[in-house]
């Protein structure tokens, strides 16, 4: 499967502690200091839209966001162009990018450690209704790749370390929620998943 767009999202543990607007200057600085991958272009502000993309760094290949979708704020990365490799490699790359973004934001002096990212759960979305409608057939196709990515997170690479659940209705994009039996530190998300690529 070579889907048009894939997104990965890690949820904030304490969304109430952070006003999305606070990310605006931080994201502008990230662009200035070349802290995000691809060619970042600008910051888009959609904090006023419920269930929306929140505050974004719009890039050519990748978008990064403090994403308010599903009413649960989180950090997300979307690959829009120039994705490469197997589905597992593509998802793995985004998991690493999102984890790195999370590490940077958790440590950001302007946010004073108020951003905390939950590390036991990840949302993987495939934004391509032609290749990946949100149904069980797509789940069957995508499942091995998702398991490969998750396996790379656990030291023993064992199966069953996570619950994979397809979410949303038939008009929504294909999305799976992965709940790890045990949270893993962000650094492991940022590096460990490398094995899957």
């Amino acid at each position, binding site marked *: 499967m*070579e*889907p*048009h*767009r894939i997104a990965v999202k890690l949820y904030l543990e304490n969304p109430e502690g952070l006003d999305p607007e606070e990310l*605006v*200057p931080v994201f*502008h600085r990230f*662009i*200035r200091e070349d802290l995000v991958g691809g*060619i970042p*272009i*600008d910051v*888009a*502000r*959609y904090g*006023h*839209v*419920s*269930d*929306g*993309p929140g505050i*974004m760094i*719009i890039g*050519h290949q990748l*978008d990064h966001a403090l994403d308010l*979708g*599903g009413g649960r704020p989180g950090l997300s990365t979307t690959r*829009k*162009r*120039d994705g490469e490799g197997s589905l597992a490699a593509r998802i793995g790359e985004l998991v690493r990018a999102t984890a790195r973004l999370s590490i940077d934001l958790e440590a950001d002096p302007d946010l004073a450690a108020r951003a905390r990212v939950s590390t036991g759960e990840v949302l993987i979305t495939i*934004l*391509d*209704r*032609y*290749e990946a409608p949100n149904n069980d057939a797509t789940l069957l196709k995508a499942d091995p790749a998702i398991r490969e990515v998750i396996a790379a997170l656990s030291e023993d690479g064992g199966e069953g370390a996570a619950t994979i659940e397809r979410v949303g209705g038939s*008009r*929504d*994009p294909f999305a799976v929620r992965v709940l790890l039996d045990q949270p893993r530190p962000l650094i492991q998300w940022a590096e460990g998943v490398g094995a899957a690529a």
Partner: protein
Amino acid sequence: MSTIGWRDRLTGQMPEDLAEEIDIFETQVELRIDGRVDERVFAETRLRRGVYGQRYDNGQRHDGIEPRTLTFPSGDLTKGPETLWDAPGMLRIKVPWGGLTPIQLDVMAELAEEYSDHILHITTRQDVQLHYVHIEDMPTVMRRLAAVGMTTREACGNGVRNLTACPLSGVCRTEAFDVTPHSEALFRFLLGHPDCQDFGRKFKIAFSGCADEACGLVMMHDLGAIARTDIVDGEPVHSFDVYVGGGLGTTPHQAKLLAERVPLGELLPITQATARVFARLGEKQNRNRARIKFLVASVGIEEFQRLVREEREILPYDPRWTAHLEDGLAPETPARTLDGVGEEDGTDPGFVAWRDTNVYLQRQDGYAVVTVPLPLGDISAAQSRLLSDVARRFVGDTIRTTVEQNIVFRWVRLEDLRDLYTALAEIDMAGAVAETIVDVTSCPGTDTCKLGISASRGLAGELREQLGAKQTELDEAVRGLRIKVSGCFNSCGQHHVADIGFFGNSRKSGGRVVPHFQVVLGGQWQNNGGSYGLAVGAIPSKRIPEVVDRITDRFVAERAPGESFLDWTGRTGRKGLAAIIEDLKTIPAYEEEPGLFSDWGNPREFSIGDIGVGECAGEVISSTDLELSFAESIAFEAQVALEDGDVAKADERAYRAMVTAARAIVRTELPDVAEDDDIIVTEFDTRFVATDRFRDRFAHSKFARPLLERHASGEAAANEEAARSLVEEAQLFIDAAHAFQIREAGATSATQ
């Protein structure tokens, strides 16, 4: 992969003509990649398909400290002059008369997720825009839209743009009759019509169901039709009053009556004849004089009427002129019939407040129109799906977008209001703000528009938040006011017809540039946008909320019982209004208030480098700044004179303001230039206009022309309208002089 997949899957589902159009466009995309289509030709091609450029698409962006180059993978391949191939762009989807169905909402939501930024943006002309779309994805997006009957064709470029109409058409209590079927017929008739392919500029059409309300905004359109019903021999007879030559932009014009009581079957041919006259006689070379309003002004309305009548007589007959009438004008019907339960009362304050502001009783008993307010016209893809579910449940296909950047549901049964409120509140779409001062509208501004000077959306969002927080404490008369914001003089936010309007500009201070908004008060929304507000002063962007507070407080304090805002501004006068905000113009040193040097929602230090050439740096306050502020005072006197009805004085002061500003510019090179108008204008012309130095990159030399023409002819404005134009032009000339000075400062510092 999915590009080919979608084409194959949708074949047969798209109207043939649209499918063919899209195939052609896709081929042109491929040819352009191979370098076999010229960039200018490609630019016009894409614009005619609704594909617009976006800010930073020249590959330059100021990051707050320095300009940076965006190095895209496709290198220097372009999709138009100075427009890089890979740079994301905007797609404008036409929504004729604002009519939408749930399935269309669903498809646009899918497209927003798969190709854009998860947002559907409703524009000030009832369209929907997707931003940050890659050029190579456009054909697929267009196909998926075409499969649900939507088109982007001629949504931009020099053609017939979206056709707008009152969102209440057919259900309005004051309308003459339902304009929807006529709007639809005219829209289909003109789409891609050969007579509309050779305009020098865009052509916007609007319909209104009555003369007094605003919904249709006919008076500010290139062509507008207002429905009327006359009783003839005891029978009601429907017809249209057709207006022509209105428009906003830098030189706003009110439309003039082209033809009265046009029979329904004559509407399409009269419009076609008008289009032909415009295509034949309208200006082609100079974009800034190319709208039909300039043609009407130059030949005079009587002559224009004659030309249209003459053209009409020789038009070859077309059966489409009347086909929609012969089919019978089937009225829209409700998805749910009344079951006689009657309205269910709700007493909780949220519901009561929402019912007060967002519900309009239809002329059909038992039904209402409900406004779903969208902050800044934005709705997310996920919300759109939820909203389309709510629509399916309560109203079916009777959704419309509005020029106030909202969505309305028509044919809501009164007995469903309580449940609908609950359903909307669950998805956070039941804000009680419709048609209140909180519901600020705005153009895209510096967020995505290449021409934006100030952050119109940033300001609109801020005002929305601040006013929303105190909404319940606001005086009743203030709650009902309208605020509209444009990011520059082009007026896409329709600030001219707001009670309180703003448009972006900038001023220099201590070597830095400060984002400003020009305050425009007393525009009229009623009477189809019946009169335009005039500027009372440019204020730093960050102080605009204070401007709103002061103006509204004064209005409340001084208002006579029942007096409208429009009347109050008229009575207070320009001078009086300007005095209320005068002290806010002072710009302190950067160190004292650095916040003033950045714009709303954008922490980067303000720069106009993202629009024009050059960068502002290192200048201290100069005599030029002082002289320009002088010129501004004179322009202000001109406005006051105009208001006092003193046309001769208004004309003289406007001219003097321009000469003064020109002198300030000339003096940057010729400090001892004589106080002689001939010498000043000649020097200005030869040094700055003829050399293209005063040329604005986007507006070209249009700001200089009024001065040169007025000087050359030596003739004073003949009437109030001409004087009003000159007064506006004087203000724009001064703004252009400021911009020129900033550009030159940037150029100087860049070469040092």
